């Protein structure tokens, strides 16, 4: 029996229609950045806070995407790297009065080292075994953060309060808006970095390992080194996102970094699109608003059923159990995504644009 390597992730072909018009691609990107810069002057503080969180989750998902989408390794433990990043930033600011902008490289560095070390055994752990090891990491994380002897640094069960940075005195904006711009800047730099990484020689090596590990090694790619490095870089991205998250929320506590966060990131990855860089931001949108959407759908749908049945079917949507219901709907949405649009939102857009351009081609040819 010859072993055709089992497919790890399904990555859709890139978008030919956009590839053909690089100017259009640049215009869309520039437009998006302009909108992102203007937006804070048009909206309320709370919405700005939410937008900042979307970008942060998008960055964390990008980290996971580099690992899963581009290198074909799985992780259910990225909540732990997010947590390590957040705690690094919080501890540095809280205990050592380090300026906030220096905590980001520190968090990234710490997470890179941890990720690289965790990635070393990952060489022997393929696919599901890696998912299992990282699953264990995610479950153990809150306990590690609550660990009693470390309480002097981590604050134990109570967590740590983080002072939010003041905007620079020459800018006439408030803290929320300053954090928004700060995050936007970091996110833009990191997304650009990811883009160049993926389109470099190194990036092609990383993807070759995903598509056919044996052929990649036969071509002289050092699979062990690249896999560990990708794990490190992936952890770095998610760690920086964690540090930003600590700044924006102004608080870290052990139970914020539970397995559920890993699940959210994975969901964001799948919904945004595996192997798509812009898709990560859409994934971030879903991570933040997905539960709300699910709750909304659940209460509306079940409320309608109750009314329709004339009160015969009482589904109890009004009480606190609605939270549980929302989680269940969340799961159903996930299932729908992997069955109906397996390539995520980015793949869906590609499909639609691809169909449109193909039909236009057919018209011009005919």
């Amino acid at each position, binding site marked *: *029996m010859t072993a055709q390597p089992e497919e790890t992730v399904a990555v859709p072909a890139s978008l030919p229609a956009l590839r053909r018009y690089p100017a259009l691609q640049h215009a869309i990107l520039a437009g998006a950045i302009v909108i992102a810069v203007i937006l804070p002057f048009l909206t309320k503080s709370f919405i700005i806070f939410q937008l900042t969180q979307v970008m942060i989750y998008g960055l964390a998902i990008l980290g996971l995407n580099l690992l899963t989408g581009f290198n074909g390794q799985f992780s259910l433990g990225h909540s732990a790297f997010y947590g390590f990043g957040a705690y690094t930033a919080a501890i540095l600011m809280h205990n050592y009065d380090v300026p906030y902008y220096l905590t980001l490289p520190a968090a990234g560095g710490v997470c890179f080292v941890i990720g690289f070390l965790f990635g070393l055994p990952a060489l022997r752990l393929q696919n*599901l075994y890696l998912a299992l090891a990282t699953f264990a990491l995610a479950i153990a994380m809150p306990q590690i953060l609550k660990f009693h002897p470390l309480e002097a640094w981590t604050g134990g069960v109570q967590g740590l309060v983080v002072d939010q940075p003041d905007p620079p005195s020459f800018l006439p904006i408030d803290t929320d808006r300053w954090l928004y711009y700060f995050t936007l800047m970091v996110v833009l730099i990191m997304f650009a970095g990811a883009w160049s990484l993926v389109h470099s020689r190194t990036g092609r090596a990383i993807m070759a390992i995903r598509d056919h590990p044996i052929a990649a090694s036969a071509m002289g790619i050092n699979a062990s080194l690249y896999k560990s490095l990708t794990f490190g870089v992936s952890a770095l991205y998610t760690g920086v996102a964690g540090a930003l998250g600590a700044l924006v929320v102004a608080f870290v506590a052990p139970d914020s970094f539970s397995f559920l966060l890993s699940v959210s990131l994975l969901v964001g990855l799948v919904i945004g699109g595996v192997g798509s860089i812009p898709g990560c931001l859409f994934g971030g949108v879903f991570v933040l608003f997905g539960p709300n959407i699910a709750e909304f759908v659940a209460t509306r749908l079940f409320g309608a059923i109750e009314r329709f049945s004339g009160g015969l079917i009482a589904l109890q949507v009004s009480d606190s159990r609605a939270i549980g219901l929302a989680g269940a709907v969340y799961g159903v949405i*996930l299932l729908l995504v992997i069955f109906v649009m397996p390539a995520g939102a980015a793949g869906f857009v590609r499909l639609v644009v691809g169909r449109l351009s193909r039909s236009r081609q057919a018209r011009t040819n005919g």
Partner: protein
Amino acid sequence: MELLLHQVMAGLATGAIYACMALAVVMIYQAIDHLNFAQGEMAMFSTFIAWQLIAWGQPYWLAFILSVAISFVGGVLIERVLFRPLHKAPILSNLVGFIALFSILNSGAGYIWDFTIKTFPTPFGHKGLFGGTLIDTHEAGMIGVTLGMLGLLYLFFRGTRLGLAMRAAAANPESARLVGIRVGWMTALGWGMAAAIGAVAGMLIAPVVFLEPNMMLGVLLYGFAGAVLGGLTSPAGAVAGGFAVGVIENVAGTFIPYFGRELKLTIALVLIVAVLMVRPSGLFGRREVSRV
């Protein structure tokens, strides 16, 4: 010495639960080569079904049997409806499928039975066994039920045509299909049996950890650790691994200051990573070899 013996016995008792979970994990791993991350939530849901039946006034053993039967049917249905279509899909889709199932069962249980902690009865009582203080009757019952279940499974797989067909379908699907075994249904049967075993595990541990939607997360992790330690390809190995993990957890918790007590889950993490690094096939599993 007295303390050590106590801890070892207590470890064997909790180990029985981990052994059940490990057994369920191995059943599905054998059938579809995937780890079921929703295994714990399936067991939790089954236990809630039993709790509901008891709350409606059914006697314990009737509720027990009904819950196992419902879980079996549920497991078969989950395979047929959810994972059959994902058979040829990439690994990531399967992983997301498991996570979705996890979310649906966990939150669904919270919706139906809410998130408050409930007590669950035990048929064995909590008296000391033979009047001693070493181990109580419920703990002895857990060990007994687990070993009994392993024995039944052994007889089933070794002694019946259906068991033989299931082993054939897992070992070599193509050849099994050629000799007329319906491989798809064998997989579904494996799911059903795993769900039933999980139901038993859930009902045994519920009197100890109390019944609530999140009760199985740690247990599942230990179940994985047991399965990996014993070998994912060996049911008996998984049971032995589960018992070993239970003993390690309890002994480490007592004798290693701080670490053991507060970082119990980290012990499972270290154990999993260590076994996978040193001996990925586990203590009793066979090594996977593939030709390229």
